C-alpha cells in the first residue's frame, strides 16, 4: 500500500488501483499482445477472471514503486525497443495519475505470439 499526506489526511493507493493503470498502459503499448500470469496464484486468478490483476506485481518502499510486468509480445519485433517503450509508458502513466514515483519497472517476457510466417 502506498500512502501520501494531504492537508486533510492520508491518501492510500491500493496495489489493485496501480495495477489497473499499469495494465492499461502496457496493453496500449505497441507490440504487447497480452499479460501472462507471473506465478501460480496469478494463474488461478486468470482462470476465473480474464480481466483480473494477473501478470503485474507492485512493491513499494520509501523511494517509490517497483513494478513487475509479465508480458506476451508479438514475434518479429525488436524486443528491446518494445520493452523500453512499455517501461517508459508505464512509468509515465503511473507517475502522472498516481503522483507516486516509480523507481523500477521490471519486464519479463513470458511468451511470444507468432501471427504469421516469415
Amino acid at each position, binding site marked *: 500500500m502506498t500512502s501520501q499526506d494531504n492537508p486533510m489526511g492520508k491518501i492510500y493507493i491500493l496495489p489493485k488501483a496501480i495495477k489497473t493503470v499499469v495494465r492499461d498502459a502496457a496493453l*496500449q503499448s505497441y*507490440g504487447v499482445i497480452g499479460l501472462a500470469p507471473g506465478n501460480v496464484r496469478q494463474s488461478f486468478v486468470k482462470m476465473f477472471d480474464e480481466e483480473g490483476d494477473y501478470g503485474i506485481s507492485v512493491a513499494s518502499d520509501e523511494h517509490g514503486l517497483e513494478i513487475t510486468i509479465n508480458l506476451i509480445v*508479438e514475434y*518479429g519485433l525488436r524486443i528491446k*525497443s518494445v520493452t523500453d*517503450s512499455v517501461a517508459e*509508458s508505464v512509468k509515465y502513466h503511473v507517475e502522472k495519475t498516481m503522483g507516486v514515483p516509480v523507481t523500477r519497472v521490471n519486464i519479463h517476457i513470458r511468451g511470444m505470439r507468432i501471427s*504469421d510466417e516469415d
Partner: protein
Amino acid sequence: MKQFSTTLPDEAERHKLLKSPLTGEGLILLFEAGLIWLTTNQEYVNALNVFPVPDGDTGTNMVLTMQAGFAEADSKRSKHAGEMAKTFAHGALMGARGNSGVILSQIWRGFSRALDGHATVDQQLLTKALQSARDTAYRGVVRPVEGTILTVLKDMTTAAEGASKTMSTLSDMLVTLVEAADVSVKNTPNLLPQLKDAGVVDSGGMGLFYIFEGMLRMIQGLSLDTATNNVVSLAQLDLSHAMEQVEEGQDYEVVIDFEPNKSFLLEQYYQGLEEIGVSIQVGEGEGIYRMHIHTELEKRYEPIEFTETHGIIKKVYMENLQDQMNHRKESEIKFNPVHPGEIAVVAVSPGQGLSRIFASLGVAAVVEGGQTMNPSVKDLVAAFEDLPTDKVIILPNNKNIILAAQNAAKVSVKQVGIIPTRNTPQGFASMFRLMPDGDFDEVVESMTEAISEVHTAEVTTATRTAEIEGVKVKKGEVIVLYDGKLILSEKSLDGAVEALYDHVDMDEFERVTLFYGEGMNQSAANSLADKTRENYEDLEVEVHDGGQPHYQYIIAFE
C-alpha cells in the same frame, strides 16, 4: 542536398529509375527520399510528440529506424525490388528505436512481404504492399488507439484501394497517398483527445506523411533539404545574402506568393525567371510558393506576368531596391566580437528588431527562428562552431527549441550551456547577467535565475476556434498568452491588451516593454504605450520594433 548514399543519381538518372514498374534501384531511391525528407523535418515531428509519453523523440526514433533500414539496403543493393524491400525491412527491424520506430519497422515488414518474389513493383502491387503493411502493423497491438500512425497508414491504404483506376503513374499514386495522409494527420486530434488538448497532430502519423511526401518530392524534382512546415518567411529567404549581390540595373525587388498549377515544374519556372532578373529564390510550404527576384526598372512587372502562367497569384510585394538598400545600410546589425576564452552567447530570435536588441546586449550571434520556424540542430551548431571560443551559451527563447539546443550541445565538442528561456524577454533578462570572462557554471546559473525576473505576454491572432484551459477562443480573435499560458481572447487588439493589464497585477511591476511585430506600425504601438503610461503612472514604458512574425506584441513585465 544531404546525401546518405555515396552518390545520389543525377536528375536524368533519377527520372529513369522512378518510372513504374519500379526496380530495386528505384525502390531504394524512394526509401532514401523518404529518409532525407523525414530527417529534414525531424525536429518538427519531435515537437509534436505528446502521445503516449510526451518525450519529444518520435522524429528522431523514426529517422534512426529509417536510417538503419537504408544502411542495410545500401550495403546490399539489388535490382530486384522484392529483395531490396526485404533487406530494407530487415535493417529497419534490427535498428527500430522507440514506439514509433517499432511500428514503422512493422510497416516495412508487411510491405516487403507483399513484394516477396517480385522483381518489379507497379501501383497494384504497391496497393497490396500497403494492405499487408497495414495488417501487419495492426497485429502488433491488442488495443489499437486511433489517431496515431496506424490510423494514418490505414487511411492511406483505403485511399489507394479506392483510387486504383486513377493511378496510372507512380506519381499519381503518391499524390493520392500523400493527400490521404495529410487529411488523416489533420484529423488525428479529433480521434485522440490528448492531441486535441495539446493542440497538435499525431507525431508518428506526421512522420509517416513526411516519408511518403519525400518520395513524391523526389519524383517531382523538388528539394528535400529545406523544411516546409510553413511558408518560408522573407527572413528565412536570407535576403541579406541577396542584398550583397545588388548591382546596377537591379532596381526592384519583387516577391510573389502563388499557388502552382498541377503541371508546375520548378526547374522550368526557374529557367523562365533567370531571363527576367537575378537573385532568384523560391521557397514553398503548404502548397504555396514564394518567389523572390531582383529586376531592372522596366522589367519589374514581368515576374508577375510570368508567374501567372505557372499558377494563381495570391500576393505581390514590390519594393524599390536602391531605396531599401540605403535604409538597410543604416540598420545593419553589429554583433559583439568574441575574444578567445570568453563566453559567447548565441540567441534564437524571431525578428530583426529583436535580433538588434540581442546584439546591443552583447550576443555574439543570432539564429533566426521562433514559434513556427524552429532552427535545426545544424543551424544552431553552425552559429557558434566558428566562434573563437570553446565556451558557448545558447538562449533558445522558445520552448520548442530547447530540445534542439540540447542536441546541439550534445553534438558539439565545445562546452555548451543552455539557459532554458521560453521567450525573448526571458532571453533579454538573462543577457543582463552575462559576464563574458566569468566562471562558466556560475554564469549559466546566474543567467538561468534571471529568467524568473521577467513575465511575458504574447499577443497573437487565433488560427482556429477552440477551448483551451477554460478560455474560449474564436478563430481570428486576438489571444494573449501570459508566461506561456493562454489567459484571454478578445475581439480587438487594444481590448486584448487592456484585458491583459487587468489580468496581471500591474502594481507589482516597475517597467513594461512593448515589442511590436512584423506588419504593425510604430504609431499604433506608441499610442498604446501612451495609454499605458496614462493609466499606470508609476510604470516606465518602453517601445521597441521587434519585427517578430505572428505576434503583434510581445510584452515584458519587470
